[in-house]
């Protein structure tokens, strides 16, 4: 039976190995999701036994790269949740525009779609030249993709619709050139991006930001880990800085939430 190919204890064993051998701590990830990702990979790669899978994950560096890429979720979109981007455009970025310099952290940026969306907004508001976008992810291979600014062309129709629905008024295709099956985004957009690995579980605050975007990352963490990460974000936000989460994520049950005020209907909070 596929779904019970690996049981709960084996998942724990595997994740402990991963921590010990590779230094990545997934033990506080939401169990059901990570179990599903691991079982999926095990089935996909046709392992004959858990012992073989465990040995490969532990000792094969090349395979571990694949493991890391496959068990973390790297599904993302440009201008995902258009009303969220509309609120960034109309409510948040104009405030940040009054500062001499804007530092933004896109935490868990995956292949970069949200960082590029943000760069487009900043460019249209004439703020990109005084901004820096730090785009980080646990996974080095997705960052390599993000740096290139290449996205599959067949997704661009959907992205373009999202852009228009978020209040974009330019011709979206002016931001990229089509190259066979890929869209190459303009280099002016990633000039102000800094890509780096950062593990929200184990790494510390590395700068002070006016805006932190971390969308659909925390849903994969358990409550305790979510609270640790909120604490990390709090320590990394300037006073009056903004924290933006995914549409199903919330600061509400974190004790530190009192120090934040939510903006209207979107999942955006301002540090008081």
């Amino acid at each position, binding site marked *: *039976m*596929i*779904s*019970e190919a690996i049981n*709960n204890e084996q998942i724990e064993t595997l994740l402990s190995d991963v921590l010990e051998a590779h230094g990545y701590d997934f033990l506080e990830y*939401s*169990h*059901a*999701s990570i179990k*599903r*990702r691991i079982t999926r990979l095990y089935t996909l790669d046709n392992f004959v036994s858990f012992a073989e899978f465990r040995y490969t994950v532990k000792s094969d560096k090349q395979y571990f790269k694949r493991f890391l890429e496959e068990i973390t*979720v790297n*599904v993302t979109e440009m201008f995902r949740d258009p009303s969220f981007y509309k609120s960034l455009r109309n409510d948040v970025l104009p405030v940040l525009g009054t500062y001499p310099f804007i530092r933004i952290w896109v935490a868990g940026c995956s292949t970069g779609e949200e960082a590029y969306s943000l760069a487009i907004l900043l460019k249209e508001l004439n703020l990109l030249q005084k901004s820096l976008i730090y785009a980080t992810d646990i996974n080095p291979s997705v960052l390599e993709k993000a740096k290139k600014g290449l996205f599959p062309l067949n997704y661009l129709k959907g992205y373009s619709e999202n852009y228009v629905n978020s209040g974009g008024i330019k011709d979206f295709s002016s931001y990229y050139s089509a190259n066979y099956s890929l869209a190459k985004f303009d280099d002016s957009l990633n000039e102000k991006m800094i890509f780096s690995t950062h593990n929200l579980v184990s790494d510390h605050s590395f700068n002070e930001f006016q805006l932190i975007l971390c969308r*659909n990352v925390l*849903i*994969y963490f358990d*409550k305790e880990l*979510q609270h640790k990460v909120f604490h990390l974000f709090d320590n990394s936000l300037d006073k009056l800085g903004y924290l933006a989460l*995914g*549409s*199903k*994520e*919330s600061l509400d*049950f974190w004790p530190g939430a009192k120090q934040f005020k939510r903006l209207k209907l979107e999942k955006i909070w301002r540090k008081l």
Partner: protein
Amino acid sequence: MAQALTPEKCSALIIGGSAGSLDVLLEIFPDLKKEINFPIILVTHRKSGNDSLLTDLLQSRTGLKVREAEEKEPVLAGNVYITPADYHLLIEDDKTISLDYSEKINYSRPSIDVTFQSAAEVFKNGLVCILLSGSNADGVEGLKTVNNLGGFVVIQNPNTAIMPYMPQQAVNNVKPHTILDSFEMAEFINKLIR
């Protein structure tokens, strides 16, 4: 072999459906008893955007509390949880909800398979799943897991479903405990009350 028409127990009920399932839900909900003492989780394929529409439609037809599922919330008896558009819904061992934005399964997010499988591992023989009308094969693999782990499988009669493909695929590939027409479903669910 004669199959039992009602399960011995029900710790949770999950209803999965796609095209043509809304009519069935609208038919079922007014007749559900308020004494329902297990959580009901709905996984339906729909476009993202007007999330509150389905919640409002169903809430207006039942005394049970209908809400869109929030991540990490516990599933409680007598509540109806609607899977948010564009997220998979999984159940944790402590019977809380996890949402997941990973790849679509069967071209679908939420995928009925994902929730059926995840819930089957947690509720085992306390799980009751109903698969309704639809035009793809989502839910079939999930029902296999539910069956294997001792849960109770109900499929809408494909002959009377608006879109017969999904329930037909299930009937062809999974041995259901019972096949029901839409008008029989509310009564079936009310009988799960213990």
